[in-house]
């Protein structure tokens, strides 16, 4: 009798343990990133009480985050359909150069330069999409190849930074504020809202998710898979072009390679985001939170006087952590 009693006790304690682990995993996979973001904000506010939580600094963080958020949302679309886009940073750099080049060298008016640049961005996305869907080149290779080519094409277009002949109106696009809030924040809000609506509330968004979930099932459900993927790549190209344009406007010049660094930031943000609120799915709100984590982290570290070489350590570490959490979240989802 005592033996069976002991066994019973043992059993209940075991089930309780399993439940804790499950709850912990659920929490980590859904709210871990948000929790991390809140913790970072609290810690930085305590450690740098005068600089970090100031209005000016918070706006600065948002402004910094907005360009990353736009390009990362485009990347989110390609990941939703189960593909990849490694060209986003290169496209941003290239467009950043082209948009001022069109004004400075070709003498185009601002609006025409921007429209041409965005069209080129979409076109580059469509080239990526064609390489991947029609010729069936692995997306990693296709987009890396195109991105690398763009670096060279950019160089041949202008070997030196373009700093003259840029109208003041162009630089004011990114530098002006409305109600004290920098313009890029509004661009980010608008673009992310549109992308969120498309992904969650429209036919094409539902189809994108279907393609990413199971491409064969999507085909048999009557979805034109190639078109959906093209749309995702085109969106990524468009978002990269917007980021590139805003970047040049912010810097007041066109410089080779300025947008290249966005690739890693965007990836880290998107994977952090996929471990947010949902189990390993890529989505826009998650991406935004991922971007904010990065922006808050960089900003806080800088304010605390962390040496610059600490930045890449933070960035790389976050990327690995993000992909790890995303993988864990997905594994958790798969076991349920």
């Amino acid at each position, binding site marked *: 009798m005592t033996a069976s009693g002991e*066994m019973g006790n043992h059993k209940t304690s075991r089930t309780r343990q399993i439940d804790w682990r499950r709850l912990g995993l659920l929490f980590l996979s859904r709210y871990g990133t948000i929790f991390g973001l809140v913790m970072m904000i609290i810690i930085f506010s305590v450690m740098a009480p005068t600089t970090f939580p100031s209005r000016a600094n918070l706006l600065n963080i948002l402004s910094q985050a907005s360009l990353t958020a736009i390009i990362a949302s485009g990347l989110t679309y390609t990941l939703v359909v189960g593909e990849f886009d490694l060209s986003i940073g290169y496209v941003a750099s290239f467009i950043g150069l082209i948009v001022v080049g069109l004004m400075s060298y070709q003498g185009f008016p601002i609006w025409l330069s921007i429209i041409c640049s965005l069209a080129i961005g979409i076109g580059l996305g469509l080239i990526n999409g064609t390489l991947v869907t029609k010729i069936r080149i692995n997306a990693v290779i296709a987009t890396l190849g195109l991105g690398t080519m763009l670096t060279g094409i950019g160089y041949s277009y202008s070997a030196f930074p373009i700093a003259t002949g840029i109208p003041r109106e162009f630089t004011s696009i990114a530098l002006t504020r409305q109600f004290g809030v920098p313009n890029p924040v509004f661009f980010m809000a608008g673009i992310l809202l549109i992308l969120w609506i498309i992904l969650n509330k429209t036919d094409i968004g*539902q189809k994108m998710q279907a393609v990413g*979930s*199971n491409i*064969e099932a999507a*085909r048999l459900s009557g979805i034109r898979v190639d078109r959906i993927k093209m749309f995702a790549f085109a969106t990524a190209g468009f978002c990269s072009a917007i980021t590139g344009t805003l970047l040049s406007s912010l810097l007041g010049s066109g410089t080779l390679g300025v947008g290249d660094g966005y690739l890693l930031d965007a990836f880290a943000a998107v994977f952090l985001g996929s471990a947010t609120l949902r189990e390993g799915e890529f989505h826009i709100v998650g991406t935004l939170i991922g971007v904010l984590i990065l922006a808050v982290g960089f900003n806080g570290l800088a304010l605390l006087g962390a040496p610059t070489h600490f930045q890449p350590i933070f960035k790389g570490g976050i990327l690995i952590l993000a992909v790890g959490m995303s993988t864990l979240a997905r594994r958790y989802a798969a076991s349920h």
Partner: protein
Amino acid sequence: MSNIAIHPQTHAIGGPDTVRSPESWMQVRGLTKSFAGERALSGADLDLKRGEVHGLVGANGAGKSTLIRCLAGITHADDGTITIDGANLKQGSPKASEQAGLAFIHQELNLIQHFSALQNMLLGVPKKTRFGLIDWKRSGIRARQAAERIGIAFPLETRVSELSVADRWLIMIGKALMRDASMIAMDEPTASLSGPESERLFSIIRDLSASGVAILYVSHRLEEVLDLCDRITVLRDGRIVDHADRGHLDKKGLVRAIIGHDIKSEKDREHFAADRSSTPIFSARDVAWRDAVKGVSLDVYPGEVLALGGLVGAGRTEFAHLVAGVQRQDRGYFELGGQRVRIPDEATAVNLGIALVPEERRSEGLMLEQSVGYNINIASLRNLRAFAGLPFISGSKGRRQAEALVEKLRIKTPHITTRIASLSGGNQQKALIARWLGTGVKLLILDEPSRGVDVGAREEIHNAIRDLARAGVGIIVISSDVEELAILTDRVLVMREGRLSGELNGTDITENNIIELSYHDAEGGQGDTQ
């Protein structure tokens, strides 16, 4: 033996007294396992003698897989013991299970495709080396002995990707034998095998049994189980509800034990004598593709359930793929409602009203990480728009459609937002059928609709198919389950080697006739339908 399910304790040799006989090689006692508060297995007992073929049957979710996973050491039971040859088996350790002589062959056959048969058999086994390099010749001696024992005819150097499913099973069996397995558990071994291939497997199983290797045979195919197994254990809702020796159970009793009640007898079935004087809803004329389909012509009438019978590899799935736009035919054409149509891709097929519920449910049908409602609605998004002409989805319309279909097809799910991966195979299949109910489908092709589905769910899937037919949809059912064809349809076209070998109607639809036509053409060559 029809009272077996009611008085499981009283009959024959399977009673509790003999269960504890010392000749049992493996004894499972009181195995209990809960997942998230739900009992998957409660107090299961199982006895296995040396060299016996032991059938393990039960509906999906009855606890078979949990039992097997406990034996394999993948799952640690909450309670209960497993004794092998008098020694207590350490639970939760795959290694301990393997060393105790237990081997497991799952339906998915965990083989590495681009490795040779030999490499696969030697996986995880310490290999003989020469100067630090693997000496395949000496390492493979035991593998070759095992291969010889079960009569593997192909060279072991063949890549797995080039082998048939039947040959892959042989590799798995050989792999188990190499490791001195005293028991091999096989999960649905004949699910992807043709008739002759299954027969060959059965004779290997009998040989193994004669040489003292016990087989734990898990299958939904009850005839096979009744025919092959020395003893049968039936699981229902995590409990052992019956066990009996060969000859003490018949199929009816077994079905009753599995589902807990009788199913409709064959005589009660509804026939679908569709009106064949009307225009066919769909026709194929002399359709050919590569070597697989060699000129198939057929007509499907509104409200008809037409069955395509035949062996695995007869070209039925390939034909279905041509109709559904997965592949394009080399020759011939299709007509829909008397109009010639081109079907270059799946999207065109779906737009025309032709849909395929594929054989590979998980890899080609389901979006596993999505919800039940999403999986149901994904093909009918156009009808779920908030405003006609604008591409915005109405959440409430989607919910209403999904909920209505869940209720209509009696899909057992806690909610439409539940992940579809957590449903049983039968309910997943019903959701895949539901996907097309909202689309105005004209021709629905179902490829092996009840494969891997338990008896109760199969009945409900059949009802769903009949409902669709009643609504005027033309239906083609591909099935290797001859009994299913006989129950479900009143016209069977049998395919053999890419051609139609004959047509069976009404009372001619018997297992014998279908099997006959699967191997020989009907009198007068290709049996066209006109």
